């Protein structure tokens, strides 16, 4: 059975709740300390981007499974969805240091490195959906 948690993000409190939900699920699933921190930090980055660039949106965290020859692999998936301005050039935002807000510009490339799978789907003027998975080792 898959477990799921949805958090609305429209203030900084939403970022904190999304992180908390993520940390709890990661603990429950048996992630180690470092991976818990990686997973929680990735949620924090995506939730903050929603708050900063799209004003509001949602973070969905759910368990996922993958059948391998060696058995069933379990993991956690983050979906960050908003109806904000969208991202014009995905190639650009994935470069380290690219920022439109005077930030560090390390969020999105950082999330990609923190997680095992990463995907951006964005349409300018319509919104952005970013998904990322961390597998349990």
């Amino acid at each position, binding site marked *: 059975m898959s477990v799921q948690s949805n958090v609305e993000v429209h203030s*900084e409190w939403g970022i904190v709740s999304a992180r908390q939900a993520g940390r709890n699920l990661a603990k429950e699933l048996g992630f180690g300390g470092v991976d818990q921190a990686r997973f929680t930090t990735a949620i*924090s980055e995506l939730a*903050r981007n929603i708050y900063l660039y799209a004003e509001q949106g949602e973070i969905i965290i759910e368990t996922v499974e993958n059948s391998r020859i060696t058995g069933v692999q379990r993991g956690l998936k983050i979906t960050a969805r908003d109806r904000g301005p969208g991202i014009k050039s995905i190639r650009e935002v994935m470069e380290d240091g690219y920022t439109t807000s005077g*930030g560090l510009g*390390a969020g999105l490339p950082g999330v990609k490195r*923190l997680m095992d799978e990463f995907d951006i789907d964005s349409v300018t003027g319509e919104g952005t959906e970013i998904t990322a998975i961390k597998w349990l080792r």
Partner: protein
Amino acid sequence: MKPSVIEMIYSQHDEIIRQWKNEVTELNQFDSTLPTNWFHETNEEFVNLIMGTLELEENEAKEQFRSFAERLMNAGWPLSYFTKGMQLFRRVLVQMLTSDESFESEKVFETLNEVEKWVDGVINQLVDEYTGSWENTLHLQKLALKELSAPLIPVFEKISVMPLVGTIDTERAKLIMENLLEGIIEHRSQVVLIDITGVPVVDTMVAHHIIQASEAVRLVGAECILVGIRPEIAQTIINLGIDLRKFPTKSTLRKGIETGLELTQRKIISTS
């Protein structure tokens, strides 16, 4: 208040007090926010205060209400107890003066007019008093929170520590910067240790704020050392691609303090 009006009210002194006490109990019996002990004693005091201040000069009367209200508010009595009590006094008077035919109507009218003004004056004063003390409390709590959320503590001469515990949001990041820069000047710190042991998540925003804070510290002529980076936090910072090599870091607060002492040409020695 006019002597003739006071005389008129005082002629009904005992009856007014009796009715007021009767009705105030009814009025407040459903109010669960009211402290139950001292209820009767307080009512007694309140009604005697009302009657007693009628003949006083305005400033003197206000002073007495002020000290009465302040004492009760500190004990948790709600503002509505005072406003209801004053309105009840007016109502009791109106009932009494209008139901008795032996009073001259002109006199009754004059009395009620005076009482109306007097009651309004007292209520306004109590409300001002109350919101004033409430705003004051709020202000103090904000100050306390500000100091608690990013305190800079002078641990040795020239060395200060800022222990950060909990989530860092934009508001708090501002406080960190302010308190750091103000505190460095105030304590004449040469070395500041920022301890992030208690920060649950260090994402790029938190890292950015810490980097900016430590650069600002350097600009005012002090040295900033980051301590308490837990192993899992060190890992995620590296994954995020943030290069902290430019910033002095120490694994523990203790090592940070040792470095701070070295930087200020001192060290801890054992005397045995």
